[in-house]
């Protein structure tokens, strides 16, 4: 028997040739952005060294650019930007809560352990 209680969504998300053209233009634009960011990162990584006093700025810059790249991949390539808000938040909010907390707690603890070893350890 044909079931009528299952509604398949997003299966017939078809688009026309014309819409496709617009979508492809966006894809190539994002490609260019991702490539430029990576090239820029490598360039900076080669010129600014870790013993430089500017390093902490570069480090923050790298992390910021990484999040930017991740944003483009998730929202455009994985189309999460086009999904309903409720799905978007179900997927993203766990990270904003747990991963940021995990990073904070692990690095704080690590620095404390480091200091303890430096002070008392052999």
């Amino acid at each position, binding site marked *: 028997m044909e079931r009528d209680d299952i509604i398949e969504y*997003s299966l017939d998300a078809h688009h026309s040739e014309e819409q*496709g053209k617009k979508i492809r233009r966006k894809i190539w634009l994002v490609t260019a952005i991702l490539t430029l960011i990576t090239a820029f990162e490598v360039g900076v*990584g080669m010129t600014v060294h870790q013993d430089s006093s500017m390093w902490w700025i570069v480090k923050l810059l790298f992390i910021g650019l990484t999040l930017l790249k991740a944003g483009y991949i998730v929202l455009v*390539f994985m189309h999460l930007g086009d999904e309903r808000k409720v799905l978007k938040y179900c997927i993203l909010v766990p990270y904003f809560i747990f991963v940021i907390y995990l990073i904070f707690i692990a690095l704080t603890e690590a620095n404390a*352990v480091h200091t303890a070893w430096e002070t008392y350890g052999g």
Partner: protein
Amino acid sequence: MAGHATTHVDATTAWGGKTSPFNVSYGKLMMWFFLVSDALTFGGLLVAYGYTRHTTQSAWPIGEETFDSLPFLGHGYPLMYVALMTFILIVSSVTMVLAVEAGHRMDKKGVMKWMIATIIGGFFFLGSQAWEWSHFIHGSHFGSVEILSGEHTGSRAIVKGHFGDLESFTVVQAGKHHKVGDVIKETPDELFHHFRTAVMNGQVKDGKITLHDGSVATWKKHNDEHMELIIKTDGTGHSLAKVTKIHGKDAEVKYWESVNSGKKGAIIYGADLQSNEYGPSQYGQFFFFITGFHGFHVFSGVVINILIFLGVSSGKYHKRGHYEMVEKTGLYWHFVDLVWVFVFTFFYLV
């Protein structure tokens, strides 16, 4: 764009049953849930890496110093190779999203074309990673050196410069295959292979090398050039290191003294799970685990892509009237790219 909300979902009745509040199919939702959990796994691994790096007392290796080689061209190209790998993966992500786009136009030929490109990109990435691992495991011709005399006694230094080619071994004490006076001439690489093995086993002492057949020989080699020993000690704060450099004759004396000491482990070449020439042992362990786990994901992705490609070419999805399977495998493939973006930053850049 793709994955448009095509069915209207009314906010007041969305959660009342018989409808998907998320407005996506079951399969796509489950793929997203899998990716959420997989991303937490990688998040946990990278956080563990950060934890270890911050607790470690000795100086952590620096990406652009550790990874500065290109195939056929040798050293002196910091980060170029990983940048290339990153680019390959980004491009294969782009071809994947183009395959999905073609699927939305029911363009079977387009889907096939772009999926083949994606699969080729995946193979290229895997091959690059194999080269990278091999290079990481074998290490440099100098290895890292434990300094055995002077004010830096006990410190370990990484060595930069050009290792002079080995020319020949001259046997001074007979073994199973060689008699006294034999001159063993092979290519510099083959001779170096014997030399490296002997050094690792503590069988090089006072200018004499014990070969694997038991014969003892002296060696003849070209001079090393531009040798530099770099000693890093943990600075205050965390990952920043205090760097001491020894150049020229001094460096050569210290280096060859350790080689000729016959002390096992005085020279470490490349990396394994116990130790590595680049820095603390945990560095090598995390390198193998995290890039290995990611590489395994890429491998799985290539296999899944091939299976889906076969489905596309047989016309299975065309008959269904939609190419959602391509979209789902696409989600996984982009995720693999996404993870690499983070690995690239935290392993190679910072």
